[in-house]
């Protein structure tokens, strides 16, 4: 066996705190090592060529690169050795940068540690077996979860690329948060006017199947071959018959139903179409308020409906679909105002959230665009905006910035002035975060042209005084306490992950951070991929994002899917569990423990029953290997022998 070892300087990143020459010298003493050298930047093209040449020149049959983390460059070098004619699994990396040179201060000890890291890698590489991936067919249908602007963008881009798309939206209409905004910063163009056409495209695109008011029940399978179950929730209206005429909504007697679309600014009817531009424009009954369900008698809508679409007996329906890739665009929610008791949101009617204010500003909103206070329906003259209401507040567990509040508050201040020329806006802020294109100019306009008074400081308490709300905070620039008597207070409430984000992540086998936002594969270089191949992220489910960023990510995710589906066959990862039929005693403990149901019984000719791995289903966790008493089932590339070789390489007392 002829192992070649290539030790990277990584400029000074490694060579600075590790004596690489020394490591090379020590490495040459290891039995089996035929060649060891150092190189300035092994990952560079000349660096990779050096490896290829050495393989042929020195007749190497195994390669070890001691450099950065394998999470960074393992794939790069696997390709390199493959190009030189070796099996890509005859390669190991020793992580001497992240795990050694960057964290250890003593050069001698680092050098020793690096040497042993290399020794471990050599020991393992000598145990490596050639592995060959099998290829399997791809189902070129893509599932998009979430019909917000990111999800719609992703769906449209996929569909325009000729892919069949399933778009699943949990609310009755697509559009998401953007559909509920009035105008958009920094251009002040009407949100629904630019979103509407997209929504229509989604509805009319012959490649897109839209499942509104539906949720993902179950996801099985693996990249290229998922089986999913979709729960179509009961709307109690047969959408195949409903024409969206809205007659039912006018006549519905229960007028105090909660209006989720309008963030509860005003009540709606128990049977309703969320908003005029809704897609699909169909009615649905809210059984929590509908008299037919609550009181057991009414049936007005059933009588009124011209197409007899009403069906009080309707049940949830589960449909099954096969797809090949998933784009997750489940969006975000806003923190509940009760979480900020010192501001009295929810307790005082005239303290509302920025989202609710959008609906008040909106011409198709419950007040048809007239700004009025919820308490007495009077027009407010003094409006106080409070940014970072919950954001950047460790005390309630939200240390992060919500990304777009600064901007929409500036926008709302501007719009307020447009709506009520003799009004005065106050904006309490911590910092003005406006890094986008044309953003900072925009916030300046709010102050300079529209006269919004910006006060740098946090608000400690809001309390009613007569029919005013007193906002008490500090002005950190004046170094004084300030009190503003406002008619209406608008909270820039913090962006949080959706309530079922974690649950969804577990269904998808993707990871999520402490706040429930989904974790991308690499924060810089793989922003829309997840660590689960075939699952991609778009929009605010990955972290607070404004519209342009969400749309960009939607398209990015779509292009990733396009790339994935550009092949008809996918290569399976050969680093999966494999059973040695001769030594398997058929106790099937592996079958009991496999998290993916990737193991099945198999009866041999002699009647013996043994375990058998379904390669494409196996995800390569290795639970089976550590379960098997006789070592008959081995996770390839992480076999007992390979790990034991590493242990033995460093424990040699």
């Amino acid at each position, binding site marked *: 066996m002829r192992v070649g070892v290539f030790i990277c300087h990584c400029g000074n990143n490694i060579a600075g705190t590790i004596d690489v020459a020394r490591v090379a010298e020590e490495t040459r003493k290891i039995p089996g090592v035929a060649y060891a050298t150092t190189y300035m930047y092994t990952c560079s093209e000349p660096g990779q060529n050096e490896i290829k040449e050495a393989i042929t020149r020195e007749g190497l049959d195994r390669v070890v690169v001691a450099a950065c983390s394998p999470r960074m460059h393992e794939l790069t070098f696997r390709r390199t050795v493959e190009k030189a004619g070796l099996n890509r699994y005859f390669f190991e990396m020793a992580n001497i940068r992240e795990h050694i040179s960057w964290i250890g201060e003593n050069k001698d000890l680092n050098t020793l540690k690096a040497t042993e890291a290399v020794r471990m890698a050599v020991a393992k590489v000598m145990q490596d077996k050639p592995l060959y991936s099998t290829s399997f067919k791809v189902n070129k249908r893509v599932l998009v979860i979430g019909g917000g602007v990111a999800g719609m963008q992703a769906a449209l881009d996929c569909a325009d690329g000729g892919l069949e798309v399933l778009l699943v939206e949990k609310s009755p209409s697509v559009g998401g948060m953007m559909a509920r905004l009035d105008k958009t910063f920094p251009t002040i163009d009407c949100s629904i006017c630019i979103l509407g056409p997209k929504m229509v495209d989604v509805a009319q695109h012959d490649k897109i199947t839209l499942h509104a008011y539906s949720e993902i029940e179950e996801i099985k399978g693996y990249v290229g071959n998922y089986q999913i179950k979709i729960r179509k929730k009961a709307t109690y209206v047969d959408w195949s018959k409903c024409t969206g005429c809205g007659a039912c909504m006018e006549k519905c007697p229960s*007028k105090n139903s909660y209006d989720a679309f309008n963030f509860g600014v005003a009540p709606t009817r128990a049977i309703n179409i969320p908003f005029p531009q809704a897609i699909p424009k169909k009615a649905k009954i809210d059984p929590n308020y509908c008299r037919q369900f609550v009181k057991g008698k009414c049936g007005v809508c059933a009588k009124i409906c011209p197409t007899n679409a009403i069906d009080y007996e309707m049940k949830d329906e589960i449909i099954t679909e096969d797809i090949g890739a998933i784009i997750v665009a489940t969006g975000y929610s806003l923190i509940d105002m009760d979480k900020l*008791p*010192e501001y*009295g949101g929810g*307790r005082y009617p005239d303290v509302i959230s920025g989202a609710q204010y959008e609906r008040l500003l909106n011409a198709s909103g419950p007040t048809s665009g007239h700004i009025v206070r919820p308490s007495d329906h009077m027009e407010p003259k003094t409006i106080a905006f409070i940014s970072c209401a919950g954001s950047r507040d460790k005390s309630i567990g939200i240390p992060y910035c919500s990304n777009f509040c600064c901007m929409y508050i500036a926008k709302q201040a501007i719009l307020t002035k447009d709506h009520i020329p003799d009004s005065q806006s106050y904006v309490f802020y911590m910092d003005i975060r406006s890094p986008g294109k044309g953003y900072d100019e925009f916030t300046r306009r709010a102050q300079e042209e529209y006269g919004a008074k910006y006060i740098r400081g946090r608000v400690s*308490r809001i*309390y*009613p*005084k*007569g029919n005013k709300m007193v906002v008490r905070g500090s002005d950190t620039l004046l170094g004084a306490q300030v009190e503003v008597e406002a008619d209406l207070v608008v909270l820039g409430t913090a962006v949080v992950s959706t309530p079922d984000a974690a649950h969804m992540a577990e269904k998808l086998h993707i990871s999520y951070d402490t706040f429930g936002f989904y974790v991308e594969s690499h924060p810089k270089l793989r922003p829309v991929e997840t660590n689960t191949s075939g699952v991609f992220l778009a929009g605010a489910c990955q972290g607070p994002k404004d519209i342009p960023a969400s749309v960009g990510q939607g398209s990015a995710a779509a292009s990733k899917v396009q790339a994935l589906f550009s092949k008809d066959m996918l290569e399976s990862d050969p680093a999966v569990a494999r059973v040695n039929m001769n030594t398997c005693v058929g106790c099937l403990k592996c079958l009991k423990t496999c998290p993916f149901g990737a193991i099945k019984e198999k009866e041999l000719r002699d009647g013996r029953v043994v375990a058998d791995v379904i390669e494409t289903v196996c995800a390569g966790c290795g639970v089976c290997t550590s379960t098997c008493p006789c070592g008959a089932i081995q996770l390839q590339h992480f076999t007992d022998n390979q790990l034991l070789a590493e242990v033995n390489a460093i424990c040699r007392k």
Partner: protein
Amino acid sequence: MVETTYGYYAGCSLEGTAREYDQSLKAVLKTLEVDFREPDDWSCCGSTPAHTVDHVFAAALAARNLAIVEKTGLKTLITPCPSCMTAFKKAQHGMAKSDSFRQEVNELLDEPYECGVTAKSALQVIYEDVGIDAVAAKVTHTIPDLKVAPYYGCILNRPPEIAQFDDPENPVSMDKILAAAGVEVCDFAFKVECCGAAFGVPKRDMVNRLTYKVLTMAIDAGANCIAVACPLCQQNLDLRQEQVNSLTGSSFNIPVLYFSQIMGLAYGYSPEALAMDKVIVSADRFVRTRITVQQAREAKELQEQQAKAKGKSPKAAENKEETKSEEIE
């Protein structure tokens, strides 16, 4: 009635400046059939300057008392004074959470404390253990034109992770208890505003300002009486009114009573039994107008009949209200 027997830690204030609190609360607890015992040989709770100087020492002072209670086998300790309660809850919290801290503290004690006692404010016991219904059940008297602003002060429910009771920003326990006792309670925005008492000596003008705010807000809220649950707040808001008046030209003359005194009145105790004379701004004008629930009912009926005679019963009015709200869209 509540099954268990409670410990009752009066603390220094209730032995002195706040005797009326002690006296009235005990009376009320008796009415509510809450059985309690006072620990022998109790000592300072530690909410002295100690806690600003040495946490272990402060905790030890608190723990000593808790240990005494623990030995008598009682689980819960009624602690009327918020300062004492915070001291106890802090010690309990810290010692239960960290073994090392517990050992440190216990080293200072003759009898180690095993963290088996929960300190509760009188409000918490009445609100959670006794229950609103029981409170209402015992009411015999009412004061028709009494309008109370419930004032909780700064530490009764704070910090939340220590207090573990009610809402730190918008507490409601006292509101509900008093309402249950048949008292009209105002919506008071400065429930937890700082009254400044703690700075009474070093920063008097500031305290006057803060006191002024609280009192003004109470008046604005339509209150003619303030209910408190803290000796320091009571003393400050009550005693300082004259000072504030002389400084700001205002004319505050609003009684500041312990919630237990107000409950006591509703339970028919005599002013003496509730030590009403111990407060500075007298509440006699209310005590005098006190009538039995029975009388109140008769009065109401009478008034209704007169109203009917005039042809518009308040009920009808209400109905109109409803229909109106239906029409709004």
